[in-house]
């Protein structure tokens, strides 16, 4: 249900952009909507992060997968059970860059003796391939937003296309991105447990990103557009001197519109895990709850009557009754 809905939604978006360009609304689809989407992206992103930042963390809740820091002769698992900020940074880096928590035994089998957890690295591999290639594709697009194009962007493009298949040369990341996104979609469709918990909010971003990758690949290799005109438009956006040159094919506006939708949708969706991964208390806290007291920020102020104060209050009485006191 959610899948069909999402697929139709993306098809409608493509149709809207196509009809829009046929009606010569390229100013709307080429300038107004991209700017608006970017604004919504930034404002929504900041708003969401600040809202998360305002939520207190009442308990100290790092999840751990290894030996806690203990007696000196017991070996601590420093990355799985960090006790200092530096170790937390190491753990976070591995999580953010290599998706370490997916690189575990995450597949459960039922056996007569109880559940058995086995290795299944496909999700890890597919997820990592998807994220890394999407990031590289994103960075490569800087060639449309910089003039002159920085050498490192050109170098990235050269490395990405080093197999030199066809003209213009095939970029590996584009192909891997499409393949990985398709794998992530098929996994949701054919793995019945995952399908059971999948909602429209899971399918929609996948279809949208597959749509973006497909239109991009089509535009690069098959339905050509005048790339210099495209750059004239994108540079206009980047320099706030927006122009819409004539003669750019509709495929470009479809691509751009889908990206605009992705940007505008981003802050309101699960895609916010981009920020959320850094703000997960189960990951970014050191497991030092036995060494450092975690105070719940919403605790009311409790007046404590300490022993020192007690003794100050009753010192004379205690002395007269022969009870030992700490301070004379």
């Amino acid at each position, binding site marked *: 249900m959610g899948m069909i809905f999402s697929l139709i939604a993306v098809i409608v978006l493509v149709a809207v952009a196509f009809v829009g360009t046929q009606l010569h609304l390229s100013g709307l689809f080429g300038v107004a909507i991209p700017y608006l989407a970017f604004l919504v*992206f*930034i404002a929504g*992103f*900041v708003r969401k*992060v*600040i809202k998360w*930042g*305002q*939520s*207190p*963390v009442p308990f100290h809740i790092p999840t751990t997968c290894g030996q806690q820091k203990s007696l000196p002769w017991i070996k601590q698992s420093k990355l799985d059970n960090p006790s200092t900020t530096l170790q937390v940074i190491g753990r976070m880096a591995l999580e953010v860059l290599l998706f370490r928590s997916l690189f575990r035994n995450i597949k459960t089998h039922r056996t007569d003796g109880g559940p058995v957890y086995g290795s299944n690295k496909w999700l890890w591999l597919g997820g990592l391939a998807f994220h890394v290639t999407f990031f590289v594709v994103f960075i490569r697009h*800087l*060639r*449309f*937003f*910089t*003039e*002159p*194009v920085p050498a490192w*962007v*050109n170098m990235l*493009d*050269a490395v990405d296309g080093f197999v*030199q298949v*066809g*003209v*213009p*040369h095939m970029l590996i990341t584009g192909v891997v991105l499409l393949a990985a996104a398709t794998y992530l979609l098929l996994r949701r469709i054919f793995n019945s447990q995952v399908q059971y918990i999948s909602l429209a909010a899971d399918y929609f971003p996948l279809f949208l990103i597959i749509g973006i990758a497909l239109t991009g690949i089509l535009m690069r290799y098959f339905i*050509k*557009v*005048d*790339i*210099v*005109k495209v*750059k*004239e438009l994108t*540079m*206009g956006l*980047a*320099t*706030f*001197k927006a122009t819409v040159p*004539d*003669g750019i094919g509709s495929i470009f506006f479809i691509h751009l519109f889908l990206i605009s939708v992705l940007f505008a949708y981003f802050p309101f969706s699960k895609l916010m895990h981009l*920020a959320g991964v*850094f*703000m997960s208390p189960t990951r970014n806290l050191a497991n030092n709850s036995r060494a450092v007291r975690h105070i719940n*920020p919403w605790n009311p102020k409790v007046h404590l009557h300490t022993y020192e104060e007690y003794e100050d209050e009753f010192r004379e009485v205690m002395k007269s009754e022969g009870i030992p006191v700490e301070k004379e």
Partner: protein
Amino acid sequence: MYNGGKIIIGLIIFIALVTFPFYTNMGKTSEQPAALTSSPDDPHIGGLKIGQMRSEHMKILDQWRDEVVRGGERFITFDGDQYEKSLQIGCLGCHAKQEFCDKCHSYAGVKPYCWDCHFAEGEGQL
């Protein structure tokens, strides 16, 4: 806000990264490659329009290379005239490389590997 300092620093880094295209181009006017002044509807040769040549020339060159290198078909007839399927004799015979190839290619961040083997007149060999 809890841990406000760290969160604000993270947000500032994030915004600085995603708005890179805006401040890197601050105050610049991007100039078009001059060769683009002619209309895309003007005819090139062989029934092709300028616009088609702009977006599809790499396909044609790729096809020519295969036909010449693998099939030995060196010539193509456009409008009754014979042309040699050749980058250096054909294209570069009329168009200067620096004006015609390099300007747009460097503008669009494209580095074709034609020049791994071919070289234009006036440019040194590899």
